[in-house]
């Protein structure tokens, strides 16, 4: 139930993902159940050790680490996309649930919105 924001865009290329994150934070602020699903190139949001000083942007890794504090219920990652990008629990941020079947995750929510 609740809202699922799907981020299928890579980090830093566009503002789409950040806007989705912002929306998720706003929903959480008003106690609306919300979760995030990262799929496609979007799984790269979840990689550890992003060092962004050279590109003059805030680290999405650090921004994202506030999600659970703010009350976002879950961070899901599409397992197939993670495998494609060499992402395993060891090189990913903590608190991510691997979704073997992300279609199933999508079906479990009542509102689904894609970033961008």
């Amino acid at each position, binding site marked *: 139930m609740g809202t699922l924001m799907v981020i299928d865009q890579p980090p*830093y290329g566009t503002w789409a993902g950040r806007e989705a994150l912002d929306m998720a934070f706003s929903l959480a602020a008003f106690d609306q159940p919300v979760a995030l699903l990262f799929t496609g190139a979007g799984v790269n949001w979840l990689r550890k050790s992003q060092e*962004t000083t050279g590109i003059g942007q805030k680290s999405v890794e650090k921004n994202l680490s506030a999600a659970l504090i703010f009350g976002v219920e879950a961070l899901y990652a599409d397992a197939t996309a993670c495998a494609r990008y060499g992402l395993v629990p060891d090189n990913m941020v903590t608190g991510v649930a691997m979704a073997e079947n992300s279609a199933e995750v999508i079906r479990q929510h009542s509102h689904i919105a894609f970033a961008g």
Partner: protein
Amino acid sequence: MTEIDTLHILNKAPEHPRSAECLRAIEPGDVLLLIESAVLTLATCSDLQAGITIYALAPDVLARGIAHSTAEASLVDFAAMVELTVQAQKVISW
């Protein structure tokens, strides 16, 4: 200073249709420069073809936390990137 015949500059993630199109268009001897979201190509298991020289923009690699998976590419900074474009006879910005 070696001259480059064709330099391909790719800034699209592997999911973007233009990424596949770029990788198809590259010929042996060409140089590929990965910037922005395209540096993620290095983190995928897709095999970049042999015989091409690959560079990747270091700040973009660091931002995405994939510095350890860039064995196929030489990392360059902004100044070296400019140098590459100057050396190239032809630049294709994908």
